[in-house]
């Protein structure tokens, strides 16, 4: 019952956040100097043609009216144009991209596989790598291993994704010819090729993110190792592996999971730069495409979806707290 109440409260909060994000996206978009109707008007663009294009796409109404039409479309669907050329976007319609001739939800669905594949593998890698490296560093504090891990993690935290990606491609793709230099093969089509094409982007993302987790885990672990209950556990005669793995790590994971939730949510919304370097068309590439072409429906749709994923990931993290630390009640 308590969990249900918690879930309902969070759901309401999520919807509110998404509403605010969508309003802000609309508002910001209309402050831009670029006019989407003019971009779609063709050339030469006479005032009459511009007005016709604007009316067809629904950009002739004030922004709040367009926003309400957008919200209405989610429940009732929308149609654009008239006569035999009417373009339909069935409910739930999260917008229609005139440039790509497709409903935004269809476009998101066709790009999500890439992003999920990229994010899932990278997240597993960086979590495992980061937490184990951080733990080992903390346990062997001051050792050569500790110093090496911490130096490497500084490089990881501070390196630009674009540079690491390109260097990775140059080294492992071109020079050593070990992995493909880009592209994506769907999991359903060929699982081996799927993993083969993703291994380098996974490693690049993991290198960039694991560093943060290693540092976070190390700091947290050092603090916890000084706690009374750890001393008690050791005094009871528990083995070091059990002390670290069972008692310390569990508490270390609470802040790690918090950061992980946000990172994963962000990554699911699109790893813009990594996708670009590896010529992968995920949500990040779709978002960049929308920004570059002033494609408002696509921009709002992808932004909202990315926000939804972040909110959802945070919700999952909140649920996980209870599992990791029974003292935290929901």
């Amino acid at each position: 019952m308590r969990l249900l109440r918690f879930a309902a409260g969070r759901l309401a909060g999520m919807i509110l956040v998404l509403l605010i994000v969508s309003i802000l996206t609309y508002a910001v978009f209309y402050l831009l100097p670029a006019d989407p109707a003019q971009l779609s008007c063709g050339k030469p663009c006479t005032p009459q043609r511009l007005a016709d294009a604007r009316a067809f796409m629904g950009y002739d109404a004030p922004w709040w009216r367009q926003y309400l039409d957008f919200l209405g479309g989610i429940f009732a669907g929308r149609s654009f144009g008239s006569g035999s050329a009417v373009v339909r976007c069935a409910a739930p319609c999260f917008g229609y991209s005139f440039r790509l001739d497709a409903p935004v939800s269809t476009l998101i669905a066709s790009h999500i596989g890439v992003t999920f594949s990229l994010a899932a593998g990278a997240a597993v890698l960086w979590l495992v790598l980061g937490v184990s490296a951080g733990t080992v560093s903390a346990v062997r504090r001051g050792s050569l291993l500790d110093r090496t891990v911490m130096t490497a993690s500084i490089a990881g935290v501070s390196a630009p994704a674009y540079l690491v990606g390109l260097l990775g491609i140059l080294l492992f793709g071109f020079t050593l010819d070990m992995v493909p230099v880009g592209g994506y093969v769907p999991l359903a089509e060929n699982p081996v090729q799927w993993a083969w094409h993703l291994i380098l982007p996974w490693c690049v993302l993991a290198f960039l993110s694991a560093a943060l987790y290693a540092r976070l885990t190390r700091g947290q672990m050092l603090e916890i190792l000084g706690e009374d209950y750890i001393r008690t556990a050791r005094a009871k005669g528990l083995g070091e592996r059990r002390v670290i793995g069972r008692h310390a790590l569990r508490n270390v994971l609470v802040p790690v999971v918090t950061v992980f939730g946000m990172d994963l949510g962000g990554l699911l919304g699109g790893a813009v730069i990594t996708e670009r370097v590896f010529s992968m068309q995920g949500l990040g590439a779709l978002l960049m495409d929308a920004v570059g072409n002033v494609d408002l429906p696509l921009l709002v749709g992808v932004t909202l979806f990315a926000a939804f994923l972040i909110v959802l990931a945070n919700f999952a993290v909140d649920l996980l707290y209870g599992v990791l630390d029974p003292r935290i009640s929901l």
Partner: protein
Amino acid sequence: MRRRSVTAVLAVTAALALTACNANATPTGSASSGTARKGGTLTILTSSSSVNLDPAKSQNLAITTLGLIFRRLTTWDIKPGQEGKVVGDLAQDAGTPSDGGKTWTYKLKPNLKYADGTPITAEDVKYGVERSFAPELSGGLGYHKTLLVGGADYKGPYQGKTLDSIEVPDAQTIVFKLSKPFGDWPWIVSMPAFTPVPKAKDDVAKYGQNPVASGPYQVESYQQGTALKLKRNTNWDAATDPVRTGGPDNITFQLGQESTVVAQRLIADSGDDRDAFGASFVPPAQLAQIQANASAKQRLVTSDPGALAYLAINTTRPGLTDVKVRQAINYAVDKKAFLVAAGGTLGGDYASTLITPGIAGRAQYDLYPTPDPSGDVAKAKTLLADAGHATGLKLSFAVENDPQSLAKAQAIQQGLARAGIEVTLKPLDSDSWFDFVTNDKGDYDLTLTSWQPDYPSANANIQPLFASSEIGGGGFNLSRYSNADVDAQIEQARAEIDATAAQKQWQQIDQRILTDAPIVPLIYTRNSFLHGSGVTDFFVAAFPAYPNYLQVSLR
């Protein structure tokens, strides 16, 4: 208007984005050819993540993607070292004018077929043009929309109305009635909207993904962001086609490719990439890398000098209304420094005319000759003194805030400073810059841009940049140059249907405008492209400075 300009500006910005270390390199030639064979799969690597194949929505050049799938009434015959020519494509010739150039008649070649084997008819061409008027399908090249009688009010065929100024007396003949004589009409009917579209197959939301092919290739599959795959159209008859060679059996466009990685793949030249070429300009860092790599250098193709990069002088601003000041600016500019900032000889060649190389009727002249390309500062100072600015002049300079544009603007700034003209740069992001220089206010003295016309005609070179109808409101007359005589001459030349006579008139207009010095022609830009070792018949002419996809084959 806007998209063209933004595209043109982006294209040339990228073209000029060459590093200074290439300043002394020489172009490696404009063509790469060898023994071609029929068959194989050609791969085209492009940074675009989507391709809209609906001819009504397209602004594609006649020699690129859509040209592989569709034929139009006329098309472009583009070869390096030769001026672009318009030739019959579906039509037997470039058109027969009557009624003083207000009526144009085209006869289709016999036995032309779509990929599904059905005959291509004049009625389909008419329907294709009509649907380009629909607001649902806006976005394409639409010069015909204001020229055809009744075009201004026509909203497409989807409400059951037809456009009566397009007549189809029989299945092989199509007649266009224009509201005024227009000598460039043969170029207009080479645009994507003049592709035949069978009415029965039309579906506004879907046609762009699965159109009916009339060219050598048809769509096999299309996945937005990933690939467009084309396969041979067996009903295309090479004997009827003057410009397409249809070499490869299949063509795959790999979409959304990062241009640096594309260049690296083509430099490496291994596996399937041997049969590939990059559709984007080679990035600056890779251009330098290619110079040091003999194999890649052989496969780098640099265009002849083409699109005009120029400094627009706002003729409506205080001080700049005086022609002597504008002429002084022409003398003071350091074109040599500008060319270095633009990447040296791989970036372009010095310019002095409005009509660009590769366009029929161009005459070479230089109204503001200087001892060497770095300018004539003494002459500039004398002219400024004559105009009452002996103590100097202060000007504002709107420029896009990307590093390449800024470097070029600084080269101009320093050149003008030598003559006592103090220039303040006003950097703006690309969209803001466009709005700033094309709005009705025109609150700037100088700006830097470039222009590649939509079709290879002097008209497309001059009218959009200097007709007074193109000032503000999104128009690209950035000098805000308004001269009633020139406007009248432009209208007269546009109406001239005799190509030779028209070219002579355009030459006069070119010089007449530059006498008023509303711009400083800086350079004719070059673009560089890279291809794999299996690719042949790959060339880039002066106009358009893009590879001619229609003739590329594999060895």
